[in-house]
């Protein structure tokens, strides 16, 4: 059976992991290459590197870093963060990344998804979607005992979930479900869905929207935002058809090491990779 994937996500700035990552037994906690190796040996199924360097010209640091990661890592990895043109995406894939992730560039110019899929193949293209409940949507949920009581078409029509960009600061016109359907139609291979309402809370993933999308779409959904305990990952994989769960700080700070998470998921009967 296809295993549910656990994906640690690392933020990269100017070729270094951003401060705060505190891994036991690491010579250089700021070195993404060292961290990547550590996660791979711990049993992470895949890694995601998000470059948050502010400069527009990030080729100079990012591409050599990708090349270095690719030379040491024996599991697949995705690279994202500010990729807005086909040429940089091609360079990153050529440097050895398995997939590239785009976010606001796709919102700005959806045709980019088609271009990337045609050029690199759908399996290489992850579109990241930052979603947040709009205010009316929030009310709608609060007034109802459970989301299941709202007919699906009403859920959609009420635009309860909107796509945000700029780290959740800017609301777009896009409604999350229809945007995700468009992403699939345009040829993306995967969607990385981050709930801005849940991100950083460690109170659990956004199960409703993840459930709706993972049943509706035929491409895999990686759920992100809110995973704080093994129980959160367990409910993610039991209550939705998400293919993977992504998290950052719980792994980085050793709150929930990957082997411990996997052990607990295995005990809970989730199909995961343990070898």
């Amino acid at each position, binding site marked *: 059976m296809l*295993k549910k994937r656990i994906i640690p996500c690392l933020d990269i700035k100017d070729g270094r992991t951003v401060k705060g990552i505190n891994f036991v037994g690491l010579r250089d906690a700021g070195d993404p290459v060292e961290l990547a190796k550590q996660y791979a040996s711990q049993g992470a199924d895949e890694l995601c590197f998000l470059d948050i360097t502010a400069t527009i010209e990030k080729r100079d640091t990012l591409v050599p870093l990708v090349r270095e990661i690719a030379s*040491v890592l024996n599991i697949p990895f995705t690279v994202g963060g500010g990729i807005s043109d086909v040429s940089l995406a091609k360079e990153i894939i*050529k440097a050895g990344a398995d997939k590239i992730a785009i976010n606001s560039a796709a919102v700005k110019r959806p045709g980019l998804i088609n271009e990337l899929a045609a050029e690199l193949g759908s*399996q290489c293209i992850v579109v990241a979607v930052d979603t947040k409940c709009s205010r009316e949507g929030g009310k709608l949920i609060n007034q109802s005992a459970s989301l299941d009581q709202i007919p699906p078409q009403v859920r959609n029509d009420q635009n309860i979930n909107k796509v945000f960009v700029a780290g959740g600061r800017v609301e777009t016109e896009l409604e999350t479900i229809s945007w995700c359907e468009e992403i699939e139609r345009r040829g993306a291979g995967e969607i990385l869905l981050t709930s801005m309402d849940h991100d950083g809370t460690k109170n659990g993933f956004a199960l409703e929207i993840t459930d709706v999308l993972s049943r509706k779409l035929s491409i895999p959904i990686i759920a992100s935002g809110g995973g704080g305990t093994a129980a959160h990952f367990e409910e993610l994989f039991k209550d939705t058809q998400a293919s993977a769960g992504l998290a950052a700080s719980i792994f980085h700070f050793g709150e929930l090491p990957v082997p411990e998470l996997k052990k607990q998921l295995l005990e809970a009967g989730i199909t995961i990779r343990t*070898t």
Partner: protein
Amino acid sequence: MIAIVKYNAGNIGSVTNALNRLGVESKVTDDPTELKTAEKVIFPGVGEAGTAMKYLRERGLDQVIKELKQPVLGICLGMQLMCNHSEEGDTDCLRIFDADVKRFLNTSEFKVPHMGWNSINSEFRIQNSELLASLETNVDVYYVHSYCAEICESTISSCDYILPFSSALQKDNFYATQFHPEKSATVGEQILRNFIEF
């Protein structure tokens, strides 16, 4: 020296990287003489079957690959191209393995591409293949593909996704894996090491 077939398919660099990690020298080449004289040949690839076969034929590499006498390992698209025919672009392939390659039928439960870690089951006619030697039972390997080869005489391991398909093949000096050993952590390293040490 291991020769890696150079053609218009992606992901060739990750095979080079994996061999480097194992301390094995390799060379990416499309030179027929270099391919014929290499100790071993790896035929990797991520891409589209039709354009890949066209490229190989235009350069005569299709015949070169078929006639290789040393151990050859096809990976992912490489393996599919070693089969009879692929539904992808209705493409006639190298006919090394007597199997057809078909697209997965997607449902909402089974996403396509089949992407991620899945098992290898090895209970077939060819038992104890040296390619899959020294593996623990129930290991997982990394797959990314939308097309798959049917089970055939040469199947040495299968995987179950919607239907069982060939996850590894072996016939004479030809070996192939649908999964990516170069991305399959320590399990993949063991498989590559097996191939290197034949």
